[in-house]
């Protein structure tokens, strides 16, 4: 199963290596990982998209992440109300006459053309991974020269519906 896990970490050298090394050592597959600074200077946030076999493996993953000294908090947000976004840059083969057609394709995706050259143009798109996949599929027939994706970054929505029972992997005995 595919899970979205966020980890709040101390922004120290080697912390990314610690996390990826740990996942590799315990044989977890990372689909994507994105890291960046947060509102607090010394703290970074990672969003990991991982493929795990079952709940036992998932629990093991969050526990092992939590064990790292530089990791402050680990949350599996897959089943929560979240905002999740990814950014992709797509360079498409394009002679002049196709540009209007491409413009028509990308418009519903609220993507923008950010670079144009004689025989190609570059498109920037943000959104959920599914939306990005959809746009990529539509553009593929035109010839994708280059594709770069940031991986997903996500956090909880401001308001969480109270009705759903959410699985908790807290390490503290409450």
């Amino acid at each position, binding site marked *: 199963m595919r899970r979205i896990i966020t980890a709040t970490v101390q922004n120290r050298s*080697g912390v990314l290596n610690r996390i990826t090394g*740990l996942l590799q050592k315990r044989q977890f597959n990372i689909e994507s990982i994105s890291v960046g600074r947060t509102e607090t200077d010394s703290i970074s946030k990672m969003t990991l998209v991982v493929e795990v076999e079952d709940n*036992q493996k998932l629990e093991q993953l969050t526990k*092992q992440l939590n064990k*790292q000294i530089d*990791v402050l908090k680990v949350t599996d947000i897959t089943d929560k109300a979240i905002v999740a976004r990814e950014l992709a840059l797509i360079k498409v083969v394009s002679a002049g006459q196709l540009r209007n057609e491409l413009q028509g394709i990308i418009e519903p995706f609220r993507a923008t053309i950010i670079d144009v050259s004689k025989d190609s143009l570059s498109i920037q798109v943000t959104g959920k991974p599914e939306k990005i996949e959809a746009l990529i599929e539509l553009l593929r027939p035109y010839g994708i020269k280059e594709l770069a994706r940031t991986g997903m970054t996500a956090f909880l929505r401001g308001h969480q519906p109270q009705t759903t029972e959410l699985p908790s992997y807290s390490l503290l*005995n409450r």
Partner: protein
Amino acid sequence: MKVQTKPGTAPRIETKTGADLLVESLIKEKVDILFGYPGGAVLPIYDAIYKARESFTHILTRHEQGAIHAAEGYARVSGKPGVVIATSGPGATNLVTGIADAMIDSLPLVIFTGQVARGVIGTDAFQEADVMGITTPITKHNYQVQHVSDLPRIVKEAFHIASTGRPGPVVVDIPKDISANPCKDEYEDDFHLPGYQPNIKPNPLQLKKLANVLETAEKPVILAGAGVMFGSASEELRTFAEKHSLPVATTLLGLGSFPGGHPLALGMAGMHGTFTANRALYECDLLINIGARFDDRLTGNLQHFAPSATVAHIDIDPAEIGKNVTTHIPVVSDSKAALQALSFHAESSAEHDEWLQHLSGYQQENPLWYKNPVKEMVPQWVIEAVHKITNGNAIVTTDVGQHQMWAAQYYAFEEPDRWVTSGGLGTMGFGFPAAIGAQLAKPEETVIAFVGDGGFQMTLQELSVLQERRLPVKVIIVNNGALGMVRQWQETFYEERYSESLLQIQPDFVKLADSYGIRGYRVDNQEDFLDLLPEVFSYNGPVVLDCRVLQQENVYPMIAPGKGLHQMIGVKP
């Protein structure tokens, strides 16, 4: 030759260096023994150690691996972190086996490695190795010091992390310019580790649940691991087991956590455990695991492990709970706190005399066995004889393999913290240097290193340390002229194709000991051995005893790989 100060030069002003700060920090942590080996990148540190030589004993081993295994032995027996220093590059990489060993067996170590100067890190400088990259997966935590003013705080954090929660090794990598350069005498060593708050208090709800199950369990059993000893909870374990008449099986590393001769003791469980301990784990309806990590050598095939039991697991490391075995009652706690709280919550237990009688029937019908050839020696007999003359009170260290299993089976420990063995990693060459560390931690105690002829040859250069320090370690080589466990598996599973497992050529261990100024003996029969033992153990100095034992002995009983606890072979002669 003394270097004389040239006349006319200005008097040298004593300024403090990073190395001095390090030494001050070590003194603050009440470190009294360092195990190490000097080299280029740690010259400033060794200079500071020289200046502070009144404060420490530095044990110069003959290989960095010897230093770290000695520190492990010291840590296991003393309960204090073992401290190791090695230089950059090869010095650090020579520690890797010991770091991994300490990690998997949860031993508190603080390891200082030299590093090339900050300016040349990443340029493939002389004796540069990526120590952070290499040690990240095998340490509880690691640091590379980037600012000299951070050093005192990092040292403090390293000792705190190594010795609290689930203990483990912490590496501090110190670039040479950090230790060499002068620094200000002002620094902050207060630390705050928001990501490291080990939970030591048990959840009362889970304990109540455990108490409830105990009230109805008809076949309860305790599995005691090394966590009992890390939590200094042997007394509490004994009280708890006696109060509820709970039989106790121990893991390999948990030997000594419960008295070996106690009527409720079932002995060691696992691949070469006793028939009774394994049957108890297989048949029980309540399994209370205290401080053991359900290692595969203990559980055998997980499908057949405690199939009808409610599993309670008390462990300070939450990640161990539910990792291998589905756990119904998780208790994240220090073992002592959990057992103390349990004595309050668990007032009564179901009557289970039938179960105890059933197990004692197993014990009588299927004790450990070996065929005693009367004249020649077999390893089991050697260990029993040594157990007898030392009244089961010695500190015993081992390598890995057949002799380790026989020592575990036949040297019944009555007291905790007397058993030093490489369990998880299974490191050959561990036992002898570990004995050096153990003897330094407990100078008054008898320390025995049971080693195989294979393992001893991996780290025997440390005989120099015995000679130098006159440490009265008794090295007993269980010499069967083979890598015994490899040979046994080749006999059992590879149709007796003894591929590279027979050691035809060996040094003369008696002459070897002699060349180090150490008493050496060789014996090949029971009579001579019994005659010799009083001399060996009354002599207050190091001894190397080469015991020639029969090669064809195999360790039994045994659970073959992939089999369950109920499928032991070699249970009876």
